[in-house]
């Protein structure tokens, strides 16, 4: 092994190291920012940690939307026709939010089993339904 070989080896070593570090950082970033998409049934089946951030998908149950008198807080029930979960949200609901229609809420499940949403997603296509719910026809 002469000097050139050593130099090449060290270049190889350091570039591999750099790539490995970059890839692991990217994968770490990815892992931190992935949100699982769950239905009320899946949430009922699992014991989720209170700070577990995920997306909840389902239909807004008819007649369950309650607005607060003094603020923008709302609550409504999301169902997948098997299980239900109450969602709390403070803010403006998107235009396509309707009772009986599909909705996606992002947030976490608190200790009492309610879902605290930080964001209600606006889907721009009125025919849109979460893929897991595509078999569900009609309204609740």
């Amino acid at each position, binding site marked *: 092994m002469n000097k050139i070989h050593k130099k090449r080896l060290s270049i190889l070593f350091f570039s591999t190291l750099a790539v490995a570090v*970059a890839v692991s*950082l*990217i994968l770490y*970033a*990815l892992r*931190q*920012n*992935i*949100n*699982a*998409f769950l239905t009320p049934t899946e949430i009922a089946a699992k014991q989720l940690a209170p700070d577990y951030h995920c*997306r909840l998908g389902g239909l807004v149950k008819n007649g369950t939307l309650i*607005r607060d*008198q*003094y*603020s*923008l807080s709302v609550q409504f029930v999301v169902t997948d026709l098997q299980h239900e979960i109450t969602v709390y949200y403070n*803010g*403006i*609901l998107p*235009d*396509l939010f309707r009772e009986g229609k599909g909705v996606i809420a992002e947030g976490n499940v608190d200790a009492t089993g309610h879902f605290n949403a930080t964001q209600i997603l*606006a*889907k*721009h*296509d*009125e025919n849109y339904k*979460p*893929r*897991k719910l595509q078999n569900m026809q009609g309204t609740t």
Partner: protein
Amino acid sequence: MIRILGELSLYLALLFAFMQSVIPLWGCWKKNLYAVACARPAAIGQFVFVLLAYLLLTYAFITNDFSIGYVAANSHTALPFMYRATAVWGAHEGSILLWVLILAIWTIVTAKPKNFNPLVLSILGLISFCFLIFTLFTSNPFAAAQLGQIPQDLNPLLQDPGFVIHPPMLYMGYVGFSTAFAITIASLLQGTLDREWIHTAKNYALAAWCFLTFGIMLGSWWAYRVLGWGGFWFWDPVENASLLPWLAGTALIHVLLLVEKRGTAKAWAALLAIICFSLSLLGTFLVRSGVLISAHTFASDPSRGVFLLLLFAILLLGGLTIYLLRMPATNAKPIIFPLLSRETSLLINSALLMIAMSTILLGTLYPLIVDALHLGSVSVGAPYFNLVMLPILFITMIAMGAAALCQGQSKQEWWHIARKNLVISLVCATALIGFFTHTLDWLSIVSIALSFWIILSILPIVKLQPGMSIAHLGFAVLVIGIILSSTLNQEREVRMKPGLAERVGPYQFFFIDTAGVSGSNYRGIRAEFEVLKNTHHVTSLYPEKRIYTVRDMVMTKVDIHPGIFRDLYIALGEPLDHDFWSVRIYYKPFIRWIWFGGLLMMAGGILAIATKRKVGQKLA
């Protein structure tokens, strides 16, 4: 009638595309001049019939010919004329037709009467052939309406001036990269990877890049005005799909410059041309196949997805195979450039752009991969993209400034200027951020400082290289816009009724009144707000809530008071009880700079094409 004529012209276009692709290819192989000469007339024939089909569809929209299913699904007699004329690209079938039309336009541009490469036309013809088959057999815009199909109106979200020009511009960019791809593949096949290749490929890549930049910018502007969330970029898969070829295209332009100047890195440039076009195809696939759970995905027919994926795989594999087999082996020793040189920074920048592209690609495709492996449904949040893009952005910006400073001076001189510029930009950025926010957020300081660093390095050479300088200045302005608008942004979501006021930033927003309003295809409520700053009247804003009656769809029409240094933005939420409304008010400083930066980048690209021509003319 129009239906039959339209379908007929599409079939004729298919025939011409077949002739354009197969006959010259055979001619090149057999050295048959007559067959080779077929390329141009066939290309013109294809263009004429695609254009005819396109005009017929537009005519059908304008005359409300609801016997065509596509027209019935996306138009209505009440739709205003401007949107009827442009509703052609309002949904899947029409936008694929637009795709093919734009490809035909690019083909005609490549087929200059005296000086054209039959092989380039043949490759473009092949792509066009595939897409015409796709149009005719999976998404025929001229398919008959179903019995009793009621006119459905255009999606209200698309009834906006921003939408009228966004798709054509974006497609001009997407499809434009197919010319760079075809020129590269043709040169590889003919073994003529020479100056001529570089020159033409670079001009076409630059032109496509300008269109793509403009298209992305328009898309961002549309999202800002129409979606009512005041954001300009959501890291939505469809937005990413347009950003991927943009990043690869930017890398391609830079590497082509290097090849043009130094004759090195040819293999990298050729590979980038292939990658760039593949990403354009991938973008079309992602948007049009319905695999994405995304904001703009309107298509959801699995056969289309499979077809497009197959097409993507064939073209990519074909391109790569030709690349591997035909890329001439260079015996010349690779030239090693000194670390502090324009050449090195061009290479570093292209690598960084490709890393950025890969990380975005990973984040975009990850949910699809997980879903395909039946590991559950996940989504990758915007924080991922922000987190991984930031370090790449910083390194890229350092290199951008450092490269501009390299003007053939010694290392010591370079360090001297660089140090001076760095100190000035850091001090200015700290002062600016400190003055505006009264805090010292290091991320914004670094971003702003790096923008200043680019500007300071570029300003002395604006006259020497106007195109490049203006494009890079545009990028710096864009970053300043993004950082300042997101750090200084103020927003309120409030419960308001007429008579009440709300303070956002230095402005007071008075809710005056609401009134009914109606348009040709909607009715709604218009609110009046008066905006005051220190008791001076600034403006009145009239945000609306509309119901598009045909689709029974609720839409928010925001009202914006634009300004160089700040936008005031009001969106009506929902009507609540007792006259109360939920209202979203934004005070967005420097947001215009984002789009102004994008425009500057495009202007720089155009200037780069124009100035190169001038130099060429002088030499001739």
